[in-house]
């Protein structure tokens, strides 16, 4: 693609087709890891930021981005990783939060500042029965971004997307 005019919305909508490798119901755009798109000397530069420093899915996301954009006709793609500003769950949209909940993952509750100060909430809403009567089982869940909770009403154990 030789057009030097960059249609960011169009490219974003293509990237929106890429699911998060670990939580396939939301896209990598909804996750908030795509930070910018620029076009220089026939190279499309995609700026991304990692969710967690050691998130093993980042590599997969990079490869998926390159594959998708190759399919769309871009041959020169450069992935630029930035750390500032640091990724935060505040970037996850309301729509994506609803998708998480329907998928069985409790979305982040409250603000990251409060969480940093007070720790994880004592109870979060169970994504299955919507009861607030739950307790934390472990600060660390199936992936770096999640904690493990247990609903005391329906007794289901569920993932909570940590607020950072």
């Amino acid at each position, binding site marked *: 693609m030789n057009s030097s005019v960059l249609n960011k919305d169009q490219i974003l909508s293509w990237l929106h087709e890429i699911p998060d490798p670990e939580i396939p119901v939301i896209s990598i755009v909804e996750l908030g890891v795509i930070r910018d798109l620029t076009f220089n000397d026939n190279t499309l530069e995609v700026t991304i930021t990692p969710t967690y*420093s050691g998130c093993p899915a980042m590599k997969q996301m990079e490869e998926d981005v390159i594959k998708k954009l190759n399919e769309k006709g871009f041959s020169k793609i450069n992935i630029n990783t930035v*750390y500032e500003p640091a990724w935060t769950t505040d970037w996850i949209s309301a729509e994506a939060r609803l998708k998480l909940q329907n998928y069985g993952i409790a979305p982040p509750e409250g603000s990251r500042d409060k969480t940093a100060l007070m*720790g994880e909430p004592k109870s979060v809403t169970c994504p299955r029965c919507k009861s607030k009567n739950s307790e934390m089982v472990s*600060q*660390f*869940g199936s*992936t770096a971004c999640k904690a493990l909770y247990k609903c005391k009403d329906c007794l289901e154990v569920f993932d909570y997307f940590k607020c950072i």
Partner: protein
Amino acid sequence: MNELVFKYLLRISDSGLILAQRISAWTGHGPFLEEDLALTNIALDLFGRSRSLLDYAGNLEGKGRSEDELAFFRNERHYYNHLICEQPNGDYAQTMLRQAFVDAFELLLYTELSKSKDQTLAAIAAKSVKEITYHKRHSFSWVKRFGNGTQESFTRLQNAFHELWPYTGDMFEPIEGETDLVKNGFVPDLQKIKTDWEKIIKDLLEECNIRLPENVYMHSGSAKALHTEHLGFILAEMQSLPRAYPEAKW
């Protein structure tokens, strides 16, 4: 200046890398599933942070060394990790107390580094602070649980304390020339961090009925890449595959 920053980056990235290698040995062997997941996640955070730091160090050095080359093709006399990070896992009390000592230190250090005049370092540090906050909450809660649990758990914590305490002083040893980095606003003064760290650890251990001893002999040497006998074994295991197959790709 770049050479000095390079060495400083090795000091902090090696510490994370070696501790991550140590605690990842618990994967599949944790006392129960949630703890197994917790330690694996913490190890991942540390590996990830070290990757970012080593990648940056390689760029600064300008010799084309990648993060992998820096991690897998240096021997122990070129590793600058803190001695405490290479100490054996021992039992779970020892693993958690080692983690608490390091987490408290890192939270103070990385909070200061997030204000560094070096913007890349500041950005990596700011991200790490979020993660270390979780690590510290986890390790501190375990130390308190051991200290106030049963006689058995208290004894284990106390034994771990005697084992590890003499390696804590080494975290506050600066590398040669570090004062220049402090003067230029690149890195914080370790003496200041030491004062805060001692207060935090004293409070933690008092809650566990362990009193800090005075005038204990402190090991040192890692700032000059001098290590205990453990590091060589860790590197042998960690580096064997890339050294046997240097061209191997994932």
